């Protein structure tokens, strides 16, 4: 996978959460993720058509996403429900869009599908290509989340 693709997704994640949810997200050290087990309670995943083809996923801990959605909507979110899954889908869509805008400036043309969301303990994430998956852990004041980006070679 072209590691130069990572920066637009990293920047987009920080920007979207700051602008839409008034949340400071601090990135940690990226690593190669080799299994499909989600590192959190709720995930959004969106397919990206290129070339190259790939996908983006976001996985949030419950505490983290409840605070983010509470900030977005100005009302206290209490549990992971349809509204939270809906918000995770929209965040995935926005981060994907912002990253693709950046990559478009470098000549790449990407399209995306409608995001899907999954929740529950130890749910799995299946990226839509056979390339390596690079994971970027983020921390916020109320919990952590993981961004995964995978593109075909």
């Amino acid at each position: 996978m072209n590691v130069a693709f990572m920066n637009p997704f990293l920047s987009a994640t920080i920007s979207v959460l700051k602008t839409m949810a008034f949340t400071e997200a601090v990135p940690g050290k990226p690593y190669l993720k080799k299994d499909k087990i989600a590192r959190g309670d709720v995930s959004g995943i969106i397919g990206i058509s290129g070339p190259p083809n790939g996908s983006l996923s976001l996985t949030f801990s419950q505490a983290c996403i409840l605070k983010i959605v509470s900030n977005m909507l100005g009302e206290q979110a209490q549990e992971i429900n349809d509204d939270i899954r809906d918000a995770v889908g929209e965040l995935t869509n926005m981060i994907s869009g912002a990253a693709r805008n950046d990559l478009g400036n470098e000549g790449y043309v990407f399209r995306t599908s409608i995001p899907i969301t999954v929740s529950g303990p130890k749910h799995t994430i299946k990226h839509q290509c056979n390339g390596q998956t690079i994971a970027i852990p983020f921390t916020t004041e109320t919990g952590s989340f993981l961004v995964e980006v995978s593109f075909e070679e």
Partner: protein
Amino acid sequence: MYDQNTSIGINMGSKIDLKIKILVVDDFSTMRKLVRNVLKQIGFSNITEAEDGNMALEVMRNEEIGLVVTDWNMPNMTGIELLQRIRDDGKSKNIPVLMLTAEGKTENVVAAVKAGVDNFIVKPFTAEVMQAKIEQIFAKRSV
């Protein structure tokens, strides 16, 4: 790439009628709530919602809508298709439409302008950006 801070040939400075009814169209309930909250921050209080294009057209047939704020990327009927349906209908053809999208590609902006959009916001956005975009719409229409 579309610059969020530019307008589509619009003058600034008109006052907005905060009593108009605004229709927010988005398949994501979170975005509908978020946009509603932003509109309330700006000062609008008369806000209604639709979760897809067909529902939006139904609302416009039955209610007096002063501004449509619609997402671009929706299943069944895209924001552009909705915009075209609005412009093709005698009752709704003059209603201002503000398009929200996650993609700021120039070709998207051109397609939206050709279809008759009044203004365009690339997500993520702040309340200040949305207020400015709405002001631009009504400034242009008051000329």
